[in-house]
Structure formats: C-alpha cells, structure tokens
C-alpha cells in the first residue's frame, strides 16, 4: 500500500538514487507514475553520462610540444641546446647535490651513468630505434632499486608502501615511454619522454636512498 506522498518521496530522492531505498519509497514509486518519471529521467541522465567518458579524445601532440616550450622558458626543464656533457652535469648536479653520499656507490652509480650517457648522447648520434636496447639499463636500475629499497627496511611501513607505490607509477610511465619509442623510433619527443622517465626513476631512487641513510 502507498503510504507516502510525492513530497515525502522527493525528500528521499537523493538517498534513493544513492541506493538507499526504503520499503515505503518503493511502494510509492510503484503507485506513482510522476515520481517514476523523475527517477527514470535521473537514471537515464546517469547512464548517458557514464558513456561520455570513453568519448573523450586523447590530447594532441601539439600540447606536449607547447608544454615543453613553456617549461623551457620558465627554466623548469632544459632544452636541446644543452650538450650531452652539460645535460649530464645538470642532471648529476641535481641528483648529487641532494644525495652526496657513498650510498650511491655500486650498481646505483653505474645505472645513473649508463642511463645518462646513453640517452643524453642521443642528440649527437642519431639512434636507430632497433639499436636501442633499454633492457640492460632497466636491469641496472632494478638492481639500484633493490639496493635503495633494502636501505628502507627499518623505515615507517606507511612511507615504504608509499615509495613502492610511487616506484610502480614511475615503472608504468617508463613502460609507456618505451612502448612509444618502439612504435616511433625516430620521434625525438618520444625519446625525450623516455629520458625523462628514467631520470624520474633515478631521482626517486636517490630520494629513497637519502631517506634510508637519514635513519
């Protein structure tokens, strides 16, 4: 039996749409075509809206170029005019000023140098995509990662979990960039992104090592 009037139903409409549906409201809805019309409308809006996300186009390439140019103007990133030596100096300067300690020895140092030289040298020796093998670099970064993470064993588990999450994000980013380079071996933009991705990972490892050493 319908014990609810339309106003009372509309008072509960927000809860109804959120899945909280009292027996009284259900009875009213069965008996009232007007309120059923309102609910049908809201459900239709929700359904059509959900299908709109997939229709969102990916941003065009020009955005990344414009972004790069703006970031270079602001000095947040450095442009192609840097020599590979300058690029390395800038990069290592940043990393080493943050982490000037022996913890960077061994695999971590090897990985940083190997990644730096291989990728920073890209503007001097055009790299044929088929000759670029990132596997040895990734292996070195992975070894460095193990060292860095093992330095965190006594740290706060929440911090460790967060760092693992960030590492997973960077690894995903690297995988995406590597895929782009494989698909477009001649694309300078794709190689720049891969370079940036490795740099991010190296910097993240530097931060982890720094935190581990601080303890």
């Amino acid at each position, binding site marked *: 039996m319908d014990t609810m009037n339309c106003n009372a139903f509309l008072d509960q409409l927000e809860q109804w749409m959120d899945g909280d549906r009292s027996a009284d409201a259900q009875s009213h809805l069965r008996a009232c075509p*007007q309120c059923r019309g309102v609910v049908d409308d809201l459900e239709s*809006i*929700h359904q059509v*809206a959900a299908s709109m996300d997939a229709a969102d186009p990916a*941003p065009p390439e020009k*955005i990344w170029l414009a972004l790069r140019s703006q970031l270079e103007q*602001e000095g947040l990133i450095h442009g192609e005019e840097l020599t590979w030596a300058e690029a390395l100096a800038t990069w290592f300067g940043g990393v080493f000023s943050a982490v000037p300690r022996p913890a960077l020895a061994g695999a971590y140092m090897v990985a940083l140098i190997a990644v730096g030289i291989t990728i920073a040298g890209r503007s001097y020796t055009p790299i044929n995509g088929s000759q670029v093998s990132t596997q040895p670099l990734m292996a070195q970064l992975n070894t460095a990662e193990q060292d860095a993470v093992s330095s965190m064993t006594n740290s706060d588990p929440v911090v460790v979990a967060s760092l693992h999450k960030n590492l997973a994000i960077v690894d995903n980013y690297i995988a995406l960039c590597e895929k782009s380079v494989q698909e477009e071996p001649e694309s300078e933009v794709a190689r720049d992104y891969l370079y940036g991705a490795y740099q991010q990972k190296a910097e993240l490892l530097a931060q982890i090592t720094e935190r581990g050493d601080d303890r």
Partner: protein
Amino acid sequence: MVGNTAEAEDLTQEAFLQLFRKISTFRGESAFSTWLHRLAVNVVLMKLRKKSGKETSLEQVTEPDEESGSPRRDFGAPDLKLSGSLDRVNIQRAVDQLPPGYKAVFVLHDVQGYEHNEIAEIMGCSIGNSKSQLHKARMRLRELLHEVVREKAREDRRAAESASSGED
C-alpha cells in the same frame, strides 16, 4: 568538463604546467593520483569561475549558498519523458550550463566514475556535500533537458504547421 576542445587542450597544458611547478609541494599525505586530480580540477574550476565572472577562492570549490537550495520540484508534463531525447550532445549542452561546482561533481561522478569519498578528497569537501551537489546537479540537468525537449516539440509543431499550410 569545459565542453570545448580548444579550451580543454589549453587547460590540459595548464594542468601539466602546474604539476611541474608544484610537484615539490607534494608531501605524500594523500595518494599522488588524488593530489594530481585536485590540482587539475582546481585549474578547471579557476577557469570556469573566471568565465562566469565569479572570483571565488579556490578553497570554496562547492557551490555557494544561493546555488545550494532545494532542487526545484518540477515533475514536467507526463508526456515529456527524457529517455528518447537523451544523447551525449544534449547532455553536454546542458552540462555546459551548470554552475562550476555542480559541473565538477557531476563530471567526476557520473562521467568519470569517481566515488563520493574520492570526490570529497579531490574537491576538499565532505562526502555528504559531494552527494547533495551531485543530486542538485542531476535535478538541474533534468530541468535543462526538459527545456530542450519542449523546444524541440515546439519546433516540430511549427514545422508540421508550415508543412500543412504549404499543402493548402
């Protein structure tokens, strides 16, 4: 959320610029994805508020009081059902007319599929606030879409009348 490709591209670029400028302020207190989304939503809201002429603080991301009254209780004519006339184009046009706070919550929840607890974190509001803004947004959209249906019915009627007068 802005319903305009060129503007969306500008805002994408602006959001990434902000990311580079502000990455050092990320302290790991929330998930990185939430932090990044909040940054992007703030970029969009700032733009929308500038467009609507409101210079509102970014912290005030939900709608002000005048927008937060009870939704209008207009059933619409019984023969005006939205289901047949609802498509992405109509909804996008109606969403464009929503106030910025409603628009943000609606797009995040109904279009992009975020949960209220995530939206609350992104928008810096309570979960209850996110739920009520979503409900008001949907009710406002329903009104706007009914207006579209009524307008289309008027146009069809006029077209039918002019066709029949042409036959005479």
